[in-house]
């Protein structure tokens, strides 16, 4: 089995080291943004947007942005192999189906009277 030069080596591959070093600054920046977004979520939750639903939507938008950052940068989904994307697409379909079932309960399609 062939390995790239750095795989068994205790010296980093020059390309890998440079690549990772660049990413480290990005990880720190993302961490700072996530922290600020947390404080933003807390602050916005005490702002009256008119209705409770409006507050929920605002908080979920910020939370989804944060989750997107974690997934894209920390979990490397920004540049991942298609195998992983395929897994996640299927998961997304099933997760949407799961929440759709909940929505179905509220639409009450089986009316007896």
């Amino acid at each position, binding site marked *: *089995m*062939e*390995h*790239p030069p*750095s*795989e*068994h*080596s*205790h*010296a*980093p591959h020059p390309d*890998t*080291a440079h690549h*990772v*070093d660049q*990413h*480290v600054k990005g*990880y*720190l920046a*993302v*961490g700072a943004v*996530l*922290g600020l977004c*947390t*404080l933003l*979520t*807390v602050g916005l*939750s*005490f702002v*009256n947007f008119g209705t*409770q639903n409006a*507050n*929920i939507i605002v*908080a*979920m938008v*910020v*939370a989804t942005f*944060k*989750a997107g950052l*974690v*997934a894209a940068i*920390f*979990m490397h989904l920004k540049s991942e*192999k*298609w*195998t*992983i994307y395929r*897994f*996640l697409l*299927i*998961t997304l379909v*099933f*997760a949407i189906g*799961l*929440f759709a*079932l*909940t929505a179905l*309960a*509220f639409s009450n399609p089986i009316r007896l009277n």
Partner: protein
Amino acid sequence: MEIPYTVSARPDTGLYNAKVGIWLFLASEVMLFGGLFSAYVFLRVGALPGYWPHGFLNVPVGTFNTLILIGSSVTVVLAWAALKMRQFMRYKFYMAITILCGILFLTIKLTYEWPAKFHHFGAFIKKDSLAKYEPYLGNNYLAAKGLTQRVEITGDLENEDALKDDSITEYDIRMDAVNADPTNPESDRPTFWQRPVSDKVAMVDKADVEYASMFYPRHSAFFSTYFLITGLHGLHVLGGIIVFTYFWLPVGANLYKKNPEHLANRIEVVGLFWHFVDLVWIFVFPLFYLL
């Protein structure tokens, strides 16, 4: 027999096997937590007005714990990056911080947040008796402002025997600020800093109470989902801490000596799990603490 593709990518997937495995596992985790969040939505949307509490959880503590978890997500990715750059001591340092962050998160949850709930009490008042407790509920004031009614009196239970002894006919509740001063505009919405329990004691007849309990899971749909989801999340944090500690101990050093890339891949896999745990908390925090 050597396990294949622990370091190099398998040609058909383009990934080392553990990465395929962890993503399949995380896909199942999405469905697990998805089911619980779905239940949360179902229960919350279906709750009658006034029966989904706000302001019972400690927002500053929740915020601190969120920042701790985000910090640990940064340090775990830095630990992985250190291994990629073959800086083993730096890896050990970042991993130690990650483990400490996880332990701090769980310690706060288990020694402060949860116990504080177990010592708090709430009595849901029967619909016909709400008017009798108007001085503690302030529903006329709330109705005038177009706000949701209150149906529960909460605080510290002075006579805990009343929970078990049927001969005691009332609950003596040293009320939370929201019930002690229900028409104060500060009580309209939850505040960032929790206001301390007041000195005022309400004597609530058991005959007027629809349901009463300490803030256990059985108290309400809110607390049952809160304890279930944060409990399951806490177990995931514990699992992460155990695996991180395993790789922080000499096992990690030995693996590093044999093949540093193998250890880097293992840390990447555990890191993916840890980031997922962080990702779940990103939704748990606003849904339970803030909204």
